[in-house]
């Protein structure tokens, strides 16, 4: 057979360095990409948090003139957009990247370069979204961008256009990541790991990914519509041309409600790992938790109009959406019951991840209950656009998603870094987080029921809202303090390292069977899976009712000699990828994919092409050239370059 290798001339050599900045730019390793997601999202978390503190400072007193109305609009718009798209989603993505391949016994995701593309698009899209802080004209139409208020007639600056463009780029990143994890979870499972032996976190990742793949295109279309209205004068949401503002609301919430589950399901997956681990019991009712997750994702498509009860859709539509919204509380309640039943009669170990996980259940339940109150349409008509709604969704998104994510950070930190986060400082942080959170958001329930509207930049002193607002603002600062304690904990724990070993928590899933941090190739030998929680039954075969498990040495026996890393520098073992592969079980390849510059090139091209819609046509051309170069280079680049000594 003829052997022809298509190559295009390279300006840069294929990246090979194992350390330094170029090793991160060219990386396709799911663990490094997970780290990049985590760090970037955490930085955005600080930005979004500062925006929140400015909002709370402004609202702490009546008739405050600290921040003018227009800046206030920009702050709440960017706070919401940042926290949803640049913090909670990518923090979840960070865990997807880190732990899905490890939990299913794979060496990487199905499409490592596509994975890198997702990260770079996320990074660049986030920058596009925040361009406004430098031009002095940030998006100010709310994170929901209601038309026609977000149209060019009523919002004349460049802010909302950058909002539409930036979110479109982020959308491409999300769809690519979603596709990647769908394929990874279906196709890359270790031998024996059937779908109903998957860890719950992986299951929730799968459900979230399917939601991403199906929901993001809807917001993508809405953004294209509002963007072309703003840029080219089309009529989608132009009321003078007959455009219908209600259509925007349908489009946005048809995306927006599945999005809510995109934000919460990963956290549900995280606590479903942590609660069994620290209760020393298998998850109660595993199939119920899985099927509840599936039902939530399915029903999540039929509840969007509960965001629109005051629009006037008529009694039939309103009743139908009220009923479907109440119905979705059932699978959610099932999950809460399962987590609690897991703890019942378990030998519970109290530490930071467990405390955050328990707080997740409690706070999420409160948020869920106020959510069911919204489901009653007449009651919702009173709550619409008040702080009661703000209280509700912060209880589910902060009290739910972020508590779950912090729980996951403390739980998986030792696996990611090799050293433990200090538990005492962690518990102090947890205490201040929970305290600050409740001081901040509980009073908003009362304020909302008393009629305080959302999105107002100030209120007059005769409304009687001052003391509760002051308490809420103090709560906000306590949350900020908790985050500072978290940063201090990282600094302190890094200075006083307590090495974790493979399995510091005596946990249940496969990621704990390998060194911390995992070697580049993850598994020296692809595991053979027999049972759900397979690693647990390898350690404690006598606990399995069937009792056929082949035991391995318990985790205590695995000492530092097993570590293939220098724990001080975290440097990868030289040539580890080749040395470590003794098998090709199940076709999980011998070679790990080589690094590549093309994902970042393609991402830069797409971002420039989109940003050029605002910056000028030459930027679009530049973006097109870079993007096409990246795309063609990518498609002609083999996943693995031939090793120099191999004859071709």
């Amino acid at each position: 057979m003829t052997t022809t290798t298509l190559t295009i001339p390279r300006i840069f050599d294929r990246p090979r360095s194992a350390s330094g900045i170029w090793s991160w730019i060219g990386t396709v390793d799911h663990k490094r990409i997970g780290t990049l997601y985590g760090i970037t999202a955490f930085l955005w978390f600080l930005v979004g948090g500062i925006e929140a503190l400015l909002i709370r400072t402004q609202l702490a007193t009546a008739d405050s003139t600290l921040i003018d109305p227009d800046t206030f609009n920009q702050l709440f718009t960017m706070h919401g957009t940042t926290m949803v798209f640049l913090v909670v989603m990518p923090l979840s993505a960070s865990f997807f990247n880190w732990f899905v391949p490890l939990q299913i016994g794979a060496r990487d995701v199905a499409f490592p370069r596509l994975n890198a593309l997702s990260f770079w698009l996320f990074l660049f899209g986030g920058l596009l979204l925040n361009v406004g802080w430098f031009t002095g004209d940030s998006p100010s139409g709310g994170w929901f961008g209601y038309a026609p208020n977000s149209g060019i007639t009523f919002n004349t600056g460049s802010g909302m256009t950058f909002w539409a463009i930036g979110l479109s780029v982020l959308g491409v990143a999300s769809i690519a990541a979603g596709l990647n994890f769908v394929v990874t979870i279906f196709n890359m499972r270790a031998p024996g790991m059937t779908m109903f032996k998957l860890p719950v976190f992986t299951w929730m990742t799968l459900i979230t990914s399917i939601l991403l793949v199906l929901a993001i295109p809807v917001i993508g279309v809405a953004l294209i519509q509002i963007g072309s209205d703003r840029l080219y004068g089309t009529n989608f949401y132009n009321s003078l041309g007959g455009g219908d503002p209600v259509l925007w609301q349908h489009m946005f919430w048809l995306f927006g409600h599945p999005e809510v589950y995109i934000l919460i399901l990963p956290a549900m997956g995280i606590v479903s790992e942590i609660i069994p681990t620290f209760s020393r019991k298998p998850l109660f009712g595993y199939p119920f938790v899985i099927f509840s997750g599936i039902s939530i994702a399915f029903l999540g498509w039929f509840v969007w109009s509960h965001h629109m009860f005051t629009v006037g859709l008529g009694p039939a539509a309103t009743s139908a959406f009220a009923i479907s919204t109440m119905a979705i509380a059932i699978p959610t309640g099932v999950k809460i019951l399962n987590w609690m039943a897991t703890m019942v009669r378990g030998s519970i170990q109290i530490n930071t991840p467990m405390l955050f996980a328990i707080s997740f259940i409690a706070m999420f339940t409160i948020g869920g209950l106020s959510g069911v109150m919204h489901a009653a349409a007449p009651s919702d008509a009173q709550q619409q656009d008040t702080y009661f709604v703000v209280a509700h969704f912060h209880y589910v998104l902060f009290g739910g998603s972020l508590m779950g994510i912090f729980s996951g950070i403390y739980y998986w930190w030792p696996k990611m870094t090799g050293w433990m986060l200090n538990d005492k400082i962690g518990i102090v942080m947890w205490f201040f987080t929970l305290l600050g959170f409740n001081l901040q958001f509980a009073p908003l329930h009362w304020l909302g029921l008393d009629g305080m509207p959302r999105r107002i930049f100030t209120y007059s002193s005769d409304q009687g809202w001052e003391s509760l607002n002051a308490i809420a603002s103090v709560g906000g600062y306590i949350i900020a303090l908790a985050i500072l304690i978290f940063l201090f904990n990282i600094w302190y724990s890094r200075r006083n390292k307590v090495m974790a070993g493979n399995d510091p928590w005596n946990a249940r899933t496969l990621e704990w069977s390998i060194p911390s941090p995992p070697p580049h190739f993850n598994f020296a030998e692809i595991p053979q899976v027999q049972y759900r929680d397979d690693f647990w039954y390898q350690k404690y075969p006598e606990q399995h009712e069937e009792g056929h498990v082949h035991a391995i040495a318990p985790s205590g026996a695995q000492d530092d000699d097993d570590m293939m890393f220098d724990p001080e520098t975290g440097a990868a073992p030289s040539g580890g990828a080749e040395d470590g592969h003794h098998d090709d079980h199940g076709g999980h390849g011998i070679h790990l994919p080589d690094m590549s510059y093309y994902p970042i090139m393609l991402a830069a091209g797409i971002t420039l092409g989109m940003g050029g819609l605002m910056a000028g046509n030459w930027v679009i051309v530049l973006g097109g050239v870079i993007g096409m170069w990246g795309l063609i280079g990518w498609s002609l680049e083999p996943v693995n370059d031939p090793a120099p000594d191999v004859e071709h």
Partner: protein
Amino acid sequence: MAQQAVTEYHAEVHDTTYNTSTGLSNRKLLMWAFLGSDVMFFGSFIATYLVYRNRSLVGPYPENIVDVPITTISTFVLLMSSLAMVLALHYVREGSKNPGRFWIFMTAALGLVFIGFQVFEFWTFVNEGLTPRTNLFGTTFFILTGFHGAHVTIGVLWLLILLFGHFKGTLRSDNSLDLEIAGLYWHFVDIVWIVIFTVIYLVTANDGAPPGAPPFLHG
């Protein structure tokens, strides 16, 4: 062995099962999942078109401007390109060089003819006074069919790259999966057009001025 240029991670061979948990190729599964995503994309645009049916404030309205016979011809051309795609995959799999090449070329060429019809149609509409800014019909029509046309264009470029690869020897019967995946995309874009054709050219083509809107007088 030649480098399997666009193969991701797993070395894949022309076989019915792959070394994956499901036995499906990763890339094929990726394409199916992507098509699911694209269904939501086009679905949203088609829904917008239908929501805004009969809501233009000024003309031209569909009955003034839509040319059903000529679009029926271009629809036929696009459907025939799907047939060409099936034949191309058949011959490439079989290893028949020249028929394979011919039918890949024909698929791309028929796609290009369809694009030509669309360019002609857009040009005619603009000349008759319908642009994306004119009214809601113009806005929803151009954006919906324009995004479909963009999909076809991407498909044509993809096919031309595959054709080039067939000449270079990187597309062979043992990795015809490359062509099969492009085929999935191509057939999908065709199916979307069947829906668009039905909605725009069969269901709404005779829509005139909605109640209260002025009739359109040819200028």
